[in-house]
């Protein structure tokens, strides 16, 4: 479904050259839920933006369903970490979800149907007439997820979507995402810096190294398909997996100290500001 | 990046000058109405050599500075007084909302009757227009005082004036500076207006005289001078604002009023 081949991204500006992503190759199969974890500042956001067609890679390519991505593809939806800045504050919840559909030239009745369905799936039918800023953080991120669902994507890219919400809400949202994935059979690529979250959600976890980024390890999560916050997180296998991922990330961080002095004060997640 | 911006800006300005030279030269606009830049520059040089021009510039600046000083002092004093006196804010709100939007040019006939072409005419208009800018920003600033900080000061037994000095003033200062900057621009507009319409001595009157005597290039030269003056005031006020607030962690944005 998604093929990333030899992806490399170098930011250049005001005399500085930052290699955010060195050489990434991996695939995501149709209907798979893959989590990407890595130390903070390892170029996860850069990678995701290249995949979403928001950034052009320096070399290498991203294929969606066999076709190279060169600009935001219609079959892909993005959920950003900063829900407060990703939802349009001048539109009510309903209009926020509907706006992308208007660009798809769908009939008004079909649009209404999709909006109602998406809002129902995230449990926000009653909030359709509210403005996003009248809702709590967790609810706002639900709106962003509903917007992505209504867009009917084949692939859903989620960039640390729950990093800014409290722990309780976060658990609810994780279960929501797994539930939606199971019901709708969408391919989901979920980026996070939270190891527990990656293991809990993913069918497979890709561990990235520090910047410049390569894939450190691919790990199959052999937990049962039915997961819940209470039991899954205390299962012995869960603990093993998370310990493994943790060790890998620590190893990745040590690797950084050895050969990457030149970019140590640079946050590679974001392009350098000019 | 910075160098590129500066270069593009210079190019843009040069292009603007070339355009202003070419448009009348090629006859798109009549030279009688829109003299080429070079002729305006000539006129400007002549003006700069004229003692009367410097007197006029001095008059305009006097009206501007005096009016601004009065407005700023009165605006800050009134603002703080309204803020620290119980109930005064509620009681004055409607009156301020009514008086503020009154265009100060409405006072022109009154100024003419009372003061003729004297400096007081200019001051009346300048002060009325800029006073509100300072007052409103001061009130916003005072409103922004953290109640916890005020409570703390109170609990340590600081009196009203100590609290004004140490809590209210530092909080309100960024807003007041914004008010002063806005007031400085408005004051120049009104000073020139008073001279232009009433005939008080200054650059405005010189422009009116140049216009009525068909000295078109001179008129444009004087307009350019007022523009440069406005530019200097804007840049100067922004610099002062930034200097004065360098210690402040967040130089606040303008309040939309």
């Amino acid at each position: 479904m998604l093929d990333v081949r030899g992806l490399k991204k170098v930011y250049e500006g005001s005399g500085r050259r930052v290699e955010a992503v060195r050489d990434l190759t991996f695939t995501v199969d149709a209907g798979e839920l893959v989590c990407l974890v890595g130390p903070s500042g390892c170029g996860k956001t850069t990678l995701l933006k290249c995949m979403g067609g928001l950034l052009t890679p320096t070399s290498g390519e991203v294929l969606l369903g066999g076709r190279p991505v060169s600009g935001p593809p219609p079959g892909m939806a993005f959920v950003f970490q900063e829900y407060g800045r990703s939802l349009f504050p001048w539109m009510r919840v309903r209009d926020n979800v509907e706006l992308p559909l208007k660009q798809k030239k769908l009939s008004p009745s079909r649009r209404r149907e999709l909006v109602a369905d998406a809002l129902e799936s995230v449990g926000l039918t009653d909030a359709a007439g509210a403005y996003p800023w009248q809702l709590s953080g967790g609810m706002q991120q639900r709106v962003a997820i509903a917007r992505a669902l209504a867009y009917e994507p084949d692939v859903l890219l989620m960039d640390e979507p729950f990093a800014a919400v409290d722990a309780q809400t976060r658990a609810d949202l994780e279960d929501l995402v797994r539930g939606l994935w199971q019901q709708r059979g969408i391919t989901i690529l979920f980026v996070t810096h939270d190891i527990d979250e990656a293991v809990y959600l993913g069918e497979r976890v890709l561990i990235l190294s520090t910047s410049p980024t390569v894939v450190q390890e691919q790990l199959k999560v052999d937990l049962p398909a039915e997961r819940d916050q209470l039991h899954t997180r205390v299962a012995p296998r869960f603990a093993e997996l998370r310990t493994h991922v943790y060790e890998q990330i620590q190893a990745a961080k040590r690797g950084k100290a050895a050969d990457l002095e030149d970019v140590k004060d640079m946050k590679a997640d974001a392009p350098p500001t000019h | 990046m910075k160098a590129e911006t500066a270069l593009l800006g210079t190019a843009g300005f040069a292009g603007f000058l070339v355009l202003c030279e070419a448009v009348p030269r090629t006859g798109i606009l009549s030279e009688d109405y829109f003299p080429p830049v070079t002729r305006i520059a000539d006129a400007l040089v002549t003006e700069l050599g004229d003692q009367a021009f410097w007197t006029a510039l001095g008059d305009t600046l006097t009206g501007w500075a005096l009016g601004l000083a009065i407005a700023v002092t009165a605006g800050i004093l009134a603002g703080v007084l309204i803020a620290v006196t119980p109930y005064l804010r509620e009681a004055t709100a409607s009156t301020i909302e009514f008086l503020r939007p009154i265009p100060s040019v409405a006072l022109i006939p009154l100024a003419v009757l009372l003061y003729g072409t004297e400096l007081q005419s200019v001051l009346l208009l300048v002060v009325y227009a800029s006073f509100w800018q300072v007052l409103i920003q001061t009130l916003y600033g005072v409103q922004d005082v953290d109640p916890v900080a005020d409570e703390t000061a109170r609990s340590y037994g600081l009196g009203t004036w100590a609290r004004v000095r140490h809590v209210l003033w530092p909080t309100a200062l960024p807003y007041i500076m914004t008010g002063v900057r806005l007031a400085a621009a408005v004051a120049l507009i009104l000073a020139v207006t008073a001279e232009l319409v009433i005939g008080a001595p200054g650059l405005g009157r010189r422009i009116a005289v140049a216009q009525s005597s068909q000295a078109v290039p001179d008129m444009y030269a004087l307009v350019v001078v007022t523009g440069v003056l406005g530019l200097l005031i804007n840049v100067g006020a922004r610099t002062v604002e930034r200097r004065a607030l360098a210690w402040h962690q967040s130089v606040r944005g303008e309040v939309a009023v």
Partner: protein
Amino acid sequence: MKNLALRLFFVLALPLILVIAWWFASDSSTDVYWPPLHTILTTFPDVWTGERLSDDVLPSLLRLLAGYTAAAVVGVALGTVIGSYRRVRAVCEPVLEFLRAVPPPVLVPVIMLFAGIGDTMKIAVIASGCVWPILLNTVEGVRAVDSVMSETARSYGITGSARLRHVVLRSASPQIFAGLRQALSIGIILMVISEMFAASNGLGFTIVQFQRNFAIPDMWTGILLLGLLGFVLSVLFRLVERQVLGWYHGLRDTSRRSS
């Protein structure tokens, strides 16, 4: 109920005191320049009804409307273009900074050269004075569109005119309205002084006529009318702003409360 009465008291008390003070202080005034308030008020309906309303007040207002609308359209359109492209902005900024700094009233004699003293001149004066704050604020607003918002729009295929309408202009609207508000007070000033400078009708012209003929109470009614006009226009503006920027005020109150 008691609360409402108290608020009403605060709203009305000071204005009433001031009017009453003016009334009694001027009641026995024999100073020609300061006629009694009751004389002014009884003169008011005689002066500003009938022909004056249609021959002076209405033309003034129409010219203001025409000039202001033209400035708004041009300012927002040009501002959007300039704000959208960094290089265009770099080229234009110094020129715009200079043009904005020119005190708008000096445009009156300049534009008189081109357009004589008719309606065209006055509309052009109002438009060319009002356009700068609108233009520069639009540039600022368009430039400052949030990066996450524009990436969201891009990733959902919201481009071209839809992006302009639903994202860029909406996101810049608080700034645009700040510019429109500044422009409104400049517009009123220019409306009045363009008529004071050279005209045969209009509010500014009439008021100056009264002053020159020493019709002092009539002149005072003119000042009151201008004041009233400024007040009414600012109230109207605020109503429109509340309507259009309701979301913005809500958003700001929410974030202020939570911070």
